[in-house]
């Protein structure tokens, strides 16, 4: 079991000094030239066979749906950070298959808890990044899937992680509702049953 003596520093509402806003629309804009030649010298990494994306059973939702779900299920609504307003909610069976696949991925990529380069928030971000990738691989073009990583203060033990520390877990909205996943061991519970639901500080979709 990998534990997470999680370190978290957050500054909210910092008002900083003003600076003039220059329009760069008419100026030359720098562009990066990707170095594909250097990349071509690197091998490809085969990953375990991923579960097939189930587009027919997935459905679209909005950021307002996500906010409403947290308002309904938690006593204190967390900050919800997002860039897009539309999300695709995956089929729940696909999510369960993905959770199993992520355990195989962990082995094949030699993924392990190592603070701070790969600690609890990186585990969560990794889960989210690969869920996004598999949906894209499956041809999902309607938007990002409704999966994000959350920062929580553990009021209670959950999935082998002790109470009294800050931690990171995954939040997913599926065809069956919203769920919390501990990405380090695959434990999954409905948001409404997650013992630390009222101590979620932020959700990053």
């Amino acid at each position: 079991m990998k534990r997470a003596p999680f370190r978290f520093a957050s500054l909210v509402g910092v008002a900083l000094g003003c600076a003039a806003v220059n329009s760069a629309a008419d100026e030359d804009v720098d562009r990066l030239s990707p170095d594909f030649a250097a990349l071509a010298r690197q091998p490809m990494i085969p990953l375990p066979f991923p579960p097939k994306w189930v587009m027919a059973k997935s459905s679209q939702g909005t950021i307002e749906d996500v906010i409403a779900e947290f308002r309904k299920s938690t006593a204190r609504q967390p900050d919800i950070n997002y860039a897009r307003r539309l999300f695709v909610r995956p089929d729940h069976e696909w999510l369960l298959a993905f959770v199993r696949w992520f355990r195989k991925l962990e082995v094949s990529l030699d993924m392990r808890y190592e603070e701070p380069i790969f600690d609890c928030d990186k585990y969560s971000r990794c889960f989210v990044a690969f869920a996004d990738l598999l949906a894209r691989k499956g041809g999902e073009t309607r938007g990002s899937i409704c999966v994000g990583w959350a920062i929580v203060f553990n009021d209670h033990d959950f999935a082998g992680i002790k109470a009294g520390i800050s931690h990171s877990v995954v939040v997913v909205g599926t065809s069956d509702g919203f769920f919390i996943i501990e990405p380090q061991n695959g434990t999954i519970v409905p948001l409404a049953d997650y013992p630390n639901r009222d101590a979620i500080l932020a959700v990053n979709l």
Partner: protein
Amino acid sequence: MKRFVAFFIFALGVPLIGAGPSLSLPKFPLPALVREDDGGIKSIGFLTFIREVRRGGVKELQDIDFVDREYAVLESSSLPVLAAWLEAAARCVGVDLPQARLGSYDGLEYARLLQVATSLAILREHGKSLAMPIGVLICNRREAWGELPGNRDRDAYMLIATERGLLVYDPPTRQLSELSKFPNHGEIFKIQF
């Protein structure tokens, strides 16, 4: 013999039931990290970030999060390989990144992917290291930035700490800017590392 062949074919097929097409990714990109004079990895904490954000002209920032206490600093010479990896990885899942804004593009997705990929690369090669300084900013694009119109759309870009300071990168357009020259630095409402 026939039974053996039949069993062999069955055994090959069983693990693939319910599986999608195979997936490979380019080897995760290992960025060069800025070093101190004594050879140690240069680290920056959130106070340095705050100073850089301030120098970058960000005003009235509502929300800035750092999940780790200290971060490494990337050599900007690594960025072309990181950009190439991101585009190649996107191609592996059928996404043509330069055309991605024609569809449902989400900048958070790609910032997260690159942060994870570089973290995994360092983990595999070195085991221990500081956190990767690849974050994200979310802003309202009030001002045009290169080919991106100033239409007040909410948008997300990568924010990368390098020896050149904080750089803003947009993967589909490959546009790169120092934070101070990013035309919407006054419209940023979220920064997260």
